Every structure is written in C-alpha cells, then in structure tokens.
C-alpha cells in the first residue's frame, strides 16, 4: 500500500496526463477525426483555387464523353421502359458541387475529403461523381466536410451493368485506376470497349451513372467470369466533385 502511494505521489501527474492524452486520441478515433477535418477545412480554405487549376481541356473531354455515355444509357433504358409501360420518373433533387480538400492519411485506404458537409445538405450514403463518372460514396459528414470512400478502395463494391447488353455484375476496387468486375452470369455479353454504368438494381447508387470502360475480358475465371474496368473519372486527379443526394433514404 505504501509503495503504491509513493508511486502515485511520484508519477501521479504523469499517469493522469498520459491517460488523458490516450483518452483524447481514442475519442478522436471514435468520432472519425471529425474535429480535425473541420479544422483542416477551415485552414485550407484560403488555399483553395476556384476552378483555375482545372485542366480544362482534359476535363471537358471527359465531361462530353460522360454525357454521351449517359445519353446512350438513357436511350437503352428508354427502349426497355417503352416495353414496360408502367413507368414513372423519380423526381430529381438538386446536386451539390464540392471541392476536394484532402486525401487519405494512408495509401492503403482510398478516400477523399470534401469541403462541403451536412450544412450543404450532404448526407451519409450520397453518391459522388466526378467529371467522367462515378467516384464514390459519402461515408461520414461533419458540418463543413464530408469523407468519401472511393470506388477504387478494395472494400467498396458497386452493382454495375454493361450499358450495351445489360449484363450485370459487381465492381470491386483494386486501389488504382483499374478495377475488377465480376459477372453474375456464366456467359455475359461483354467485349473490350463496352461502357459500364451503375446497375438499375443497385440500392446504393442512382442507376445509369457511367463508371468505366472494359479493358480486358476474362471469361475463363472461376467462380465467375471477370473483366478489367478502367474508371473514366480521373480518380487520382479529382479537384471538384458532384454529390447526388440519396433518392430513397432508408
């Protein structure tokens, strides 16, 4: 008992301080670093350039391409919808444009931090697109920032379909500009160059957003045929993105 008391008088302050520090660190972790991101957004605001840095030509090209593909997809869908007479258009909500202010603190984890948050109407689960196509999904928000898990992250999976033939599958990120798509059918109708869009049965993303182009088809893969997909949005060069609010919140 005596030694414990002596230890306490000697190191008491230190022990209290260390446990305080650990407690704070743990709290920050549990809140997903929300306070830090807010501070970061505040400090980085003066350094954000208003679209001056956009590599215009490249981005407009991608934008045009994206719209062309969207149109193709919509035409394809329209054909099907004409067959199915029961059709109603979901009301479109306004989108939010947001600057990309940060990336992940670790290269194994593919995420971006946006400079707009819940104050601007962004909610967890909203789909995020860049110029060219799908980028990711909002996983966490604070009043002025939100954190987006990129489609290229190995843990993100997106229901997708081939725009031309409607063959369905699932895209899994691989930490780079290229991802792997696994098909649900044994013999999918797909060839290199085909455009992949988000699937109409996907609950997480609005349907018809372009994701990428097929690079290589591997029909012999087990247990399901696979294809290499190249993302059309320049995921490693994002500067501005568009956040689409969720249409049917759970």
């Amino acid at each position, binding site marked *: 008992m005596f030694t414990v008391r002596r230890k306490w008088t000697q190191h008491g302050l230190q022990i209290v301080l260390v446990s305080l520090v650990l407690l704070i660190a743990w709290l920050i*972790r549990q809140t997903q670093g929300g306070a830090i991101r807010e501070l970061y957004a505040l400090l980085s605001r003066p350094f954000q350039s208003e679209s001056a840095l956009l590599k215009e030509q490249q981005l407009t090209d991608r934008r045009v391409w994206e719209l062309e593909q969207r149109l193709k997809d919509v035409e394809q869908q329209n054909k099907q919808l004409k067959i199915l007479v029961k059709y109603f258009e979901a009301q479109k909500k306004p989108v939010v444009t947001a600057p990309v202010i940060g990336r992940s*603190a670790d290269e194994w*984890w593919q995420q971006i931090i946006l400079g707009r948050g819940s104050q601007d109407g962004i909610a967890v689960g909203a789909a995020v697109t860049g110029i060219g196509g799908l980028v990711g999904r909002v996983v966490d928000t604070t009043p002025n920032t939100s954190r987006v898990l990129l489609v290229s992250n*190995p843990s993100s999976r997106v229901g997708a379909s081939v725009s031309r033939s409607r063959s369905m599958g699932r895209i899994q990120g691989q930490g780079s500009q290229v991802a792997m798509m696994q098909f649900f059918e044994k013999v999918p109708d797909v060839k290199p160059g085909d455009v992949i869009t988000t699937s109409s049965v996907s609950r997480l993303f609005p349907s018809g957003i372009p994701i990428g182009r097929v690079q290589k088809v591997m029909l012999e893969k087990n247990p399901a045929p696979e294809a290499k997909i190249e993302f059309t949005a320049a995921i490693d060069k994002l500067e501005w993105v568009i956040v689409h609010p969720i249409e049917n919140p759970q």
Partner: protein
Amino acid sequence: MIARFSPRQRQLLNGLLIASSVVLCLLLSPTRLPGMELLGVGPNWFLIWVVTWSLKHKVLSSVIAGLTLGLLQDSMSSSYPSHVVVLVIVGFITARLQRHIKEDLITIVLLVFILSLIAEATIALQYALMELRPIDEIWLDYQRIALSSAVLTSLWTPAFYYPLHSWWEKLQQ
C-alpha cells in the same frame, strides 16, 4: 533564451510544442502539396513524428506515443487495418535502437526508410491475415506503396526531426 524560463514554464512550453507538432502532423496528412507526392503516395507524417519522439524518449513513453498517434491516424483513414500496431512497433524498435544510433541526419533518414518499409509491411500483413484482399494484389500494392512512401517519408524527416530534436536538446541542457 530558454534558461530564462522557470522549469514549470519550460514544461508547459514543451507540452504546447508537442501538441502543436501533433496537430501539424494531423493537418499535413491529408494534404498533397507539390513535391510531397510520388505516384500518388504522400509521406507518412505520423511515422516521422513517432521516430523523432522515440529517439529522445524511453521505450515505454515511445510505445505510448505510438499508441496515441496510431489512434489519430486511424481516425484520419481506416480503423482496420489499424495503424496502432504499426506505430507501436515503430516506436518500440526506435527506442530500443536509440543507444546504437549516431544521431546524424543520414543515419536517421536511413532508419526512417527502413522503418517505413516495415510499417507498410505490417499493414500489408494485416490485410493478408484478415483475408480482405487476395495475396497477389496485396503484394503488387505493397511494392508500389512501400517504395514511394519510404523514399518520401525519409526525405521529409528533417522537417519534424530538426526543430523538435534541437528543442529537446536545448531543454536537456
């Protein structure tokens, strides 16, 4: 200049400096300023901080520093695979090596280079053990990330090492 302050004030100033350097570390980690990026990979600021700390402190306090910074890095990226294990290992190794290291910059840079290879390997190992991704994919990613991260981290080491190290030297006198 430091001699003018009372021990109490010095301690307070030290704490303030440590806290602000950690905050700086937190704020630097999501930024990619020009010259801070190689193949899309940025330097691992948390690792630099833990190494700098561990070169001047005992094993226990280095491990605690690794634990704290690990929790903070988790908050800025993902909680699984966790960075706590990584930085605790880094802190422990550095504190144990402390006595055998000549404290010149080249040695420290080399040490950080090797430690960041070990750190990325620990993360890769966690991915492999949890079977989150196929092994060949992890291996490819490891090669890409580990090398650029090690080069960048070691080159940016002086940014934290110089000011903190010289401050602690002065404080000891």
